[in-house]
């Protein structure tokens, strides 16, 4: 259990680093990269959450006799299924952000937010 606790702390630290980068970095590309770090930390958090019950992929074996034993060591499928959706959404949002940033770079190649504020 201690290992899981330690991993959880590290993951939350990564999320904090991503969040701080998002706030403190001036360059828009760096902001989006920091957001990606934050998103990856959340994905890791959900994977860790799923691993609390076991490490095996939650796929039922074909033989019935193994069912009762292997169920105990399976990972929790719900957080895994949930985070799959979140990964897809995060990816599409990043793609949209990068498209807009590439168009903004025509205005200011340095991509500093101050130059876009009115």
């Amino acid at each position: 259990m201690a290992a899981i606790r330690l991993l959880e702390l590290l993951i939350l630290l990564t999320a904090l680093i991503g969040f701080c980068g998002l706030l403190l970095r001036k360059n828009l590309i760096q902001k989006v990269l920091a957001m990606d770090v934050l998103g990856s930390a959340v994905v890791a958090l959900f994977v860790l959450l799923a691993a609390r019950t076991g490490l095996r992929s939650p796929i039922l074996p074909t033989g019935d006799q193994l069912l009762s034993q292997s169920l105990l060591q399976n990972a929790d499928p719900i957080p895994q299924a949930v985070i799959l959706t979140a990964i897809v959404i995060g990816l599409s949002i990043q793609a949209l952000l990068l498209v807009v940033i590439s168009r903004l770079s025509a205005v200011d190649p340095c991509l500093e937010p101050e130059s876009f504020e009115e």
Partner: protein
Amino acid sequence: MSPLALPIAALLGPYLAAFLNALLPSLGRPLLLACSLSSAGLGLKAILSSSPQLLAWLGPLGVQLAIDPLAGWFLLLDGLVFGAVVLDGWSRPQRASQLTLMLVLLGGLGGAAVVTDLISLYVTLEVISIAAFLLILSETDTNLWIGLRYLLIGNTAMTLYLVGAALLYAQTESFGLSEAAALPLCAGHVFLLIGLFTKGGLFLNGFWLPATHAAAAAPISALLSGSVVTAGVIPLVRFSLLNEALALRIGTVGLASALLGVIAGLICTDVKRLLAWSTLSQMGLLVLMPASAGLFGLAHGLAKAALFLSCRQLPTRALDHWNLGHCRPDQRLAFWLAPLSLAGLPPLIGSLAKTGTPSLAGPWLAPPAQPDRDSGDRGVRPSLEPGRNNACTWRSDPSDRRRRPGVVGGSGAAAGAVMAAPAPARLPHLPAVALQVALARREPGGRPAAPSTAAAKTPGSNRRSQHRPSFCA
């Protein structure tokens, strides 16, 4: 045909219509109108039905939707606002892609109103976020940075929301809203609320809102301010109804948001920005009174959408040159009716929302289990106390008093009653006052008001202080 077919068709319809619209662009407007009508119809049915309708898919671990009266109010609001926007733009040329995005947005909003678990809520909020972002960008190129900021802030907030959902799942083994609300206050709730406050435009988390809503084109602003922003507020209302401790925290932030919106609205000089600040403060009031949030959201959304759509008729957005002389009488009527409804003038819908809804409309307005939960622990919900209507007339007409000091004597008694009322009872009127003050800074002859805000306010405050003794007497 099962009784569930109609709700499913109404919730799924916009997405199917969006696909159809991409194939047959000429059908866009009728499809959007039909979808908004069906959403409004589903909302009305949910409001009028006695018991909430539950749709469960895929067993206990699957998705459950609840079409209850609270969701009904917001479904009705979405349908009406989208219908108004499509009718308003019927004679103007409109790109098919924009209509597709509006259909997706309508589908997302309908979903956000009825979901009961954290992850479905996350998905619908992100769908709304992306559709709104593309809609903001679809009008002009100058809004690139505003749109980018909207999506960046929204996605960061939703990522924090996911952290909160994960932390809550670790304790409850479930993503359900009711299970999450049943826990005592913990770190997961904090992350969850930070995300939802940001999406709902509340207090400091809502600082992105005024610039975004002011920069978008008129119909987009109407959609954003009228119904999109409520998508983040509905789950907050649900949390408030389920958990007292959470209701207290959410209510505190809502109160701060109401004050912040009014104060910022008083000093801004752009009419669309003023309306957006008013949205921020009204969202604060909405979470403050969860029991009547549905009707309040409907009243606010309709008035705000009407105001944003009417703003297109103005020659200039600067409040210093406020002039309705160019508008037709019916447009002028919209400019007067909508703010008066927000202020709560009795025959209009806004006053229904403010004067203790349960007594007016029977059991289907308030959730039966918690009829008066919020008035008990905070005492900020407006109630039907004597003198409240006086407060309303006095509060909603400060400019008259400023211009014609003779009126002050007549309303002195009413003003005294207001001063005597406990302070929290007066708070819900503040945003209405802001709007009224700003809209009424026009002089009677249609001349523009004084050039700067400070100059316009100083004589008024002097006069007010001269007459202060008569209030106290």
